Every structure is written in structure tokens, then in C-alpha cells.
């Protein structure tokens, strides 16, 4: 698998290629029995508490880390285009500071590429309507440049 990560200031974008068809990749996200097996980073376990894959349908996951830390995440499905796009809102119940108690949106795009599938995930923070404009805040070099600048400053 080859993965890449790129970040804009108000969105997170990750992408990976898999040696399987788009249908298989899409169903790993929409079949509760499948997503419960893989969802979450390696040192996490996921339990599907609620998952109604239809527009407006709710989902709620419980995640348990290796050290036993429990968190809950939930949202609604916004768009479902088989083998193409899955879009849902995301709210972290214990991590309200990260989502600021407001909705964020995750869109997962599926595309056939080089005999496999390209899966691109975009997580956008939508604190207000004004944020729509802010989301277009495209810095050519974005976060790495900002980080270097701020870190350089701390060492002054």
C-alpha cells in the first residue's frame, strides 16, 4: 500500500491505494460487520453501536484503546454513492475540544486506479458558515511551513 498525507489548515486529507476493486473498498466502509473489524488505528478496537447506512441515518462507534481508554464518536450519513463516495458528519463525544462541539464532515472518495482502488479521505472542520470560506484558505506550503516558522520563533 502506498499512503500519503497532506493537510490544509482547516481540513485533513489522507489518501491510499489498495490492490482491491472499488466495490470491496466501499463495502469495507458500509458493511457494519466489516467496519467493526478494521476501523481505528492499529492499537484500537471498534464497536459499532449504531449504523444505519442511508442518507440522514445515524452511526455511533465506541473505540477502546489498548490501554483501555474508551471514546465515542457519532454522526449522520450525508451522501452515499455506491463505490464512489461516502460522506458523513463526525462528532467526538469525549474530544469535544477538537470538534469544538460542532459538526465536522468526513468524505471518503473511491476511484479505480492502476488495477486497484484509490481511497481519499477528507475531514473538514465546519465550525460555522463562515468556515466555508476559511476552508478555501489554501496555503501553498501550508502546515509544514507554518510549523517551521513558529518553532523557529520559539527558539529565538
Amino acid at each position: 500500500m502506498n499512503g500519503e498525507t497532506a493537510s490544509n489548515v482547516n481540513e485533513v486529507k489522507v489518501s491510499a491505494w489498495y490492490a482491491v476493486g472499488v466495490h470491496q473498498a466501499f463495502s469495507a466502509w458500509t458493511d457494519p460487520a466489516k467496519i467493526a473489524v478494521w476501523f481505528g488505528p492499529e492499537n484500537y478496537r471498534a464497536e459499532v453501536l449504531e449504523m444505519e447506512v442511508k442518507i440522514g441515518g445515524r452511526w455511533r462507534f465506541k473505540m477502546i484503546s489498548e490501554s483501555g481508554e474508551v471514546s465515542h464518536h457519532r454522526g449522520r450519513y450525508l451522501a452515499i454513492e455506491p463505490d464512489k463516495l461516502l460522506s458523513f458528519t463526525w462528532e467526538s463525544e469525549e474530544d469535544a475540544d477538537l470538534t469544538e462541539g460542532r459538526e465536522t464532515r468526513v468524505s471518503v472518495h473511491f476511484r479505480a486506479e492502476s488495477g486497484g482502488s484509490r481511497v481519499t479521505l477528507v475531514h473538514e472542520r465546519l465550525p460555522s458558515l463562515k468556515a466555508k470560506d476559511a476552508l478555501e484558505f489554501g496555503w501553498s506550503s501550508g502546515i509544514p511551513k507554518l510549523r517551521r516558522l513558529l518553532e523557529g520563533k520559539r527558539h529565538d
Partner: protein
Amino acid sequence: MASPDATFSALAHPVRRRMLDRLLDGPTTVSQLGAEHAVSPGAISQHIRVLEKADLIRRTLNGRQHRIELDEKGFQPVLTWAEKYGAFWGANLDSLGAFLMREKTDER
């Protein structure tokens, strides 16, 4: 700390986004910013006030010149969010890859 709304309102204006873009290259002066962005002195100080309120820039007096630079305070929540979720989703796509490969092997 500025409210998230102040931050996003501040980022919502294209001139202010361009000003921040310019400041990524390093500190500058008020008059330079105005000249570079073809904005009247009145408008530029208005934009500077909005960015200052959002903790996105800070102003220091250097002789008779106001020096403007990016302020890490306003950007920190944005960076924290992007880092945390960037790592989270990256790890998720890895887990998905491992699952899809297992599924593929099981089919055989």
C-alpha cells in the same frame, strides 16, 4: 484565547488570507503590507485589527514602524486538530489496507 468564531471570521476574508500568506515568509511592516496588497491605509489597519483580535498576528513597535508577524496563539488549535486527525485517519487507512488484504487472501 480568541473564540473559534473570531478565528474563522478573520480567515474568511480573501485580503486577510493573502496577508497571512505573505506573513508566512516572515515579519513585515504595516506600510509594506498595504503597498503589497494595494489596500488603503484605513482598510489595512482594519484588517490588522481583525487578525490581531483573532490572535493570528501580533504587532510590535519598532522605532516609528509597526512590525507585524504571525502569532502562534491563534494557529495552535488549528494545528492540534490537523495533526491529531491526520494521524488518526492515516492509521485508519493502514488498518483498512490490512483488512482488505486479509479479506482477499481468505477468498482464495
